């Protein structure tokens, strides 16, 4: 099976790219760090009142920030592919006898690794501003797995965007409004109950909220059940739909 070997070769190339531009990892955390500081210290006091008694806002906030980080980070997959297309690298790869999915599997695999580092970085930031997890190390590991799974499924969604947009500026421009709606009309920063009723249905059930709520289940109450289950279904669903579409697009893109 050459898919495995080709994926490994492409992932090697993409990981080298990440290592050669370590500043991009840092940049990826700047925006979320600003959000942490802003919401933790500026808006946090006001929002605290809407939370159930006994819950601290920082523990509520951090799962939202983790998901925000990986959602905006998933854009990197699309931007990278659009750049490869634009620079003619995809042509080179397509003229070689490699497995047709390898360019995509290699990139999404490398992005998984990138996301791991970014989430670890954000967890450290969380601890620095008083984030606490009383449900044990296994909860943190579980949260990490959920976050990486969600990041992986989004990588495939944004692979489609990158292959369609064909240049990184367009890829970012078409993604941003969509991402903003996903992240802000969610339970990331404020409880859904404070939103107007017409928005609540969406905000409660869209995948970003579901994954955030699942991470909260794991790290706050330790009662991992319904939301974690729903999050896993979303991850499987998004991947199952987007992966074949991305591969088909890659085959056809000229």
């Amino acid at each position, binding site marked *: 099976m050459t898919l495995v070997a080709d994926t490994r070769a492409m992932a090697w190339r993409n990981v080298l790219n990440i290592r050669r531009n370590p500043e991009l990892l840092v940049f990826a955390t700047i925006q979320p760090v600003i959000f942490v500081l802003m919401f933790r210290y500026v808006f946090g006091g006001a929002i605290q009142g809407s939370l159930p008694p006994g819950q601290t806002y920082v523990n509520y906030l951090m799962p939202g920030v983790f998901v925000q980080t990986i959602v905006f980070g998933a854009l990197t997959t699309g931007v990278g592919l659009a750049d490869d297309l634009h620079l003619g*690298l995809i042509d080179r790869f397509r003229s070689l*006898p490699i497995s047709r999915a*390898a360019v995509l599997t290699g990139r999404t695999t490398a992005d998984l690794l990138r996301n791991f580092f970014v989430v670890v970085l954000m967890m450290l930031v969380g601890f620095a501003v008083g984030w606490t997890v009383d449900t044990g190390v296994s909860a943190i590991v579980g949260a990490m797995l959920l976050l990486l799974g969600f990041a992986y499924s989004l990588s495939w969604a944004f692979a489609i965007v990158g292959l369609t947009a064909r240049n990184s500026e367009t890829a970012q421009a078409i993604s941003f409004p969509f991402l903003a709606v996903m992240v802000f009309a969610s339970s990331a920063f404020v409880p859904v109950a404070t939103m107007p009723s017409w928005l609540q249905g969406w905000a409660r059930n869209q995948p970003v909220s579901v994954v955030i709520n699942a991470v909260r289940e794991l790290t706050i109450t330790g009662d991992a059940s319904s939301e974690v289950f729903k999050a896993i279904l979303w991850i499987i669903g998004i991947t199952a739909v987007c992966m074949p579409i991305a591969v088909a697009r890659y085959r056809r893109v000229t």
Partner: protein
Amino acid sequence: MNPNGAAIDAAIEARGLVKRFGEVEAVRDVSFMVPPGTVLGVLGPNGAGKTTVVRMLTTLAKPTAGTGWVLGLDVQRDATKVRASIGLAGQYAAVDENLTGRENLRLVGKLTHLSAERTAERADALLEQFNLTKAADRLVRTFSGGMRRRLDLAAALVHEPPVLFLDEPTTGLDPKGRNELWGVIRGLVGGGTTVLLTTQYLEEADALADRILVIDHGTVIAEGTSGELKSRFATTVIEVGFRDAALAERAATALAPVGDLRTKGEVVRIGVAGDASAQAMLEAVRALDSAGMEPVTMVLREPTLDDVFLSLTGHAAEEVVDTDGDDAVVTKGRGRKAKAEGGAR
């Protein structure tokens, strides 16, 4: 011999290739054969359809009609086998900027499923051959344009493909880089590689190609060896040089009756039939003398491919529809020629 063991007389063959992009017909009915171990030069201006022909033969684009074969393998049905036998170096150096030169070659080695040892050997040999050994472990983003282009060609050669497609390999290179690349291509052909090379530069086709295919607006307008094309389509040229362009303009009026006339800068070129060249030279001298004009230089020269191209594509202004994904250009016959010459210097 193709990978199936059958003897073949064409390393590359195109039969009736057509490519349509919506309303635009980029390639219309292009056919040709490239015998093994030879170089075919595909010559044409920007937007002529050269890149599209290459993309179809290298499995990157699906022909609207027609078929292509590489080493007897159908480029659509046996695409994977074709890919294992070809190398492609494009107009834009397709190398990863964030990898070193050596890593770029290693990546191609991995993707063409060479062993790690073989990949390392090939990378070393190619870096040496392309004069990149010193820069091998530097990131490509620090490379000059010429170095990138050499690395791009090296990347196309890692798996030692018997058939090589070069799409405008020297466009944008300075004369030194161009000469280096020409040397490398000659070396590869000497080693038995079959090459299809597209170019806008007549000088390049003349220097490298065994046979030349001239295409314009997606159709083949001439084919032959450089000598054949010259004798078939071009006329002998009288070149008369003056001190400045204004003088050349004035002289052009006096010289008009002698033959087919073009003025560029301070040089007037007169195309005349080969067998009447001596007579025409005399006429030109008399015309200048009676006009009281003294040229700086006056030479009779054999036609170049440049002249062939002009006589084939005509002098009239025409619009070149962009179909290669290059920047759209509107050129005149003469403007085109100026471009080709400017680049060839």
